[in-house]
């Protein structure tokens, strides 16, 4: 399939005022500001194919929102080229934005005091959506998100989850080809979170909408995306499938063992002992040791009397934290 987003060598440099500290700093800053350059994005290159759900992840301040802003045409990059849906986002603004939808997780695009349906109708006029097409789209969205009871109520009366459902619907009324979601599940309860995820999958399948998702919630990434782009300090650290990373790190296991009596010393070939306290011990396999439950049981019962044990691997969040750390280390 053809790539719908082509991001090549994008750099973005900001000039920010540097504040000097000291007694007369306010006056100094007021009259003569020093500036320093911040490289928000450094040669960022990636491609997204039509129909993909891409997770765009990175720690705070890594350059995620700058990228989203460039992709949605709000900012122009310092250098580099970008083609989205065959257009350059920051040229022909009005033509370009017809085909994108954006949901900023914590900012609403709907009106606070008027019924949601009125906001939707305003959006209909803004995007010049024909009436029958609008009705049809709304029907589909309503069915998928259960909006019916919400549409007649003003936004201020809705709960956080209900608001997010309406935001999602609002950004899809014009059936954009690409949807940017900035933290769509933040602050939602478990049930709504699942509903939102199902919905994202649904429109991706139904309308073939390409979705770019930024989130800190790793279960979102696991449940939704088929590709991740990992960014840190303005540079792409990794792009590819999430499973690759997972399998690379899931080989590291932690084993908690309970013995039937107190041991003074616990040792096992191929493992390190993380902690040991009389009847209890925690072990980790060395990178050279591939963990197999059967081999481990054989090995440990030969030396000690074991009552019980429990194996756990790294959680997705831990993997990510580890990844960030590694990349940070390698940079030094």
């Amino acid at each position, binding site marked *: 399939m053809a790539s719908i987003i082509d991001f090549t060598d994008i750099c973005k440099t900001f000039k920010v005022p540097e504040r000097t500290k000291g007694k007369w700093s*306010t006056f100094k*800053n*007021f009259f003569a500001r020093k500036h320093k350059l911040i490289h928000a994005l450094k040669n960022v290159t990636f491609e997204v194919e039509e129909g993909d759900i891409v997770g765009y992840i990175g720690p705070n301040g890594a350059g995620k929102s700058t990228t989203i802003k460039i992709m949605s045409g709000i900012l122009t990059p310092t250098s580099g080229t970008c083609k989205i849906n065959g257009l350059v986002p920051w040229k022909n603004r009005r033509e370009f934005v017809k085909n994108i939808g954006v949901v900023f997780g914590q900012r609403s695009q709907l009106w606070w005091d008027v019924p949601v349906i009125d906001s939707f109708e305003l959006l209909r006029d803004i995007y010049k959506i024909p009436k029958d097409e609008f009705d049809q789209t709304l029907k589909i969205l309503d069915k998928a998100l259960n909006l019916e009871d919400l549409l007649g109520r003003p936004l201020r009366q809705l709960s956080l989850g209900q608001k997010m459902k309406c935001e999602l619907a609002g950004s899809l009324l014009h059936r954009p080809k690409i949807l940017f979601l900035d933290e769509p599940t933040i602050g939602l309860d478990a049930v709504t979170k699942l509903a939102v995820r199902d919905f994202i999958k649904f429109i991706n399948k139904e309308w073939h909408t390409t979705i770019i998702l930024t989130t800190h919630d790793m279960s979102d990434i696991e449940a939704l995306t088929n590709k991740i782009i990992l960014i840190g300090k303005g540079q792409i650290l990794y792009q590819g499938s999430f499973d690759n990373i997972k399998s690379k790190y899931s080989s590291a296991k932690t084993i908690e063992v309970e013995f039937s009596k107190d041991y003074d010393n616990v040792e096992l070939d191929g493992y390190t002992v993380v902690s040991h306290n009389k009847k209890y011990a925690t072990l980790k396999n060395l990178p050279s040791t591939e963990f197999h439950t059967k081999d481990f049981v054989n090995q440990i019962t030969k030396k000690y009397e074991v009552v019980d044990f429990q194996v756990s691997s790294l959680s997705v969040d831990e993997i990510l934290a580890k990844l960030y750390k590694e990349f940070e280390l390698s940079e030094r």
Partner: protein
Amino acid sequence: MGKSYLGIFRMEFKGELQYRAKAISGIATQLFWGLLQIYLYMAFLNTESVDGFSITQMASYIWLGQAFFAMRYILMGKNIGQSITNGNVCYKFVRPLNLYNQWYSETLGQKVASTLLRFPLILIIAALLPVGLGLSAPVSIPALLLCIVGILLGVCMSTTLSMFIVWLTFKTLSEKGSATIISTISGLLSGMVIPLPMMPQAVQNVINYLPFRFVSDLPFRIYIGNVGITDGLIFLAIGFAWLVLLTILGKLLIKSALKKTVIQGG
């Protein structure tokens, strides 16, 4: 007891000191307004003169007014109005403090801090301007001292009057509207709209005895010698009596407004 109010005062004071950039831009604005007003009233005083109010005196009067602008403006402390209209005021009942005193300390702290940040620079710049356009020296040392006493009275009077906005907000539940009503009345009667010495004598004869002119008009007139030392002392006494009276009245009104709020359950 008094210590906790002093604590609130100090907190608000420190908070206000944070906004230094705001203060600098405020000073620039004040300087511009000052000049504009002086040129305006100059046009009036050029054609006809009012007895005992010359252009030079007018310029000083305007500059003092600009320098102490933050204190003259009748405005309650930030967040007080909001806490009343959204009902958060209920949570304040849990604190073992008198709410009137608490709000008074908050408002006073903000007024004093923003005044202290602005007035020295404005006065210095105004004093450097040529005579007739700039700030002249006080007529005498006693006048200066009396003026300072008057300013201290003024900042308290301003705060006391601001407390009536709090009361009105309880009644109307509109913070903006209440603030506008009180500050408009006080603006006209305290010489912020038109310098009081330029008003018709008959009007002045009434306004001079109302509480509003003690907010700002009196100390400046003592400074320029438009009000003599003896008269100044008498007026200061009247102002002090108003201050005590209005503070007691404000306390009673707010107490009854609070009682109603508690009964209604906020």
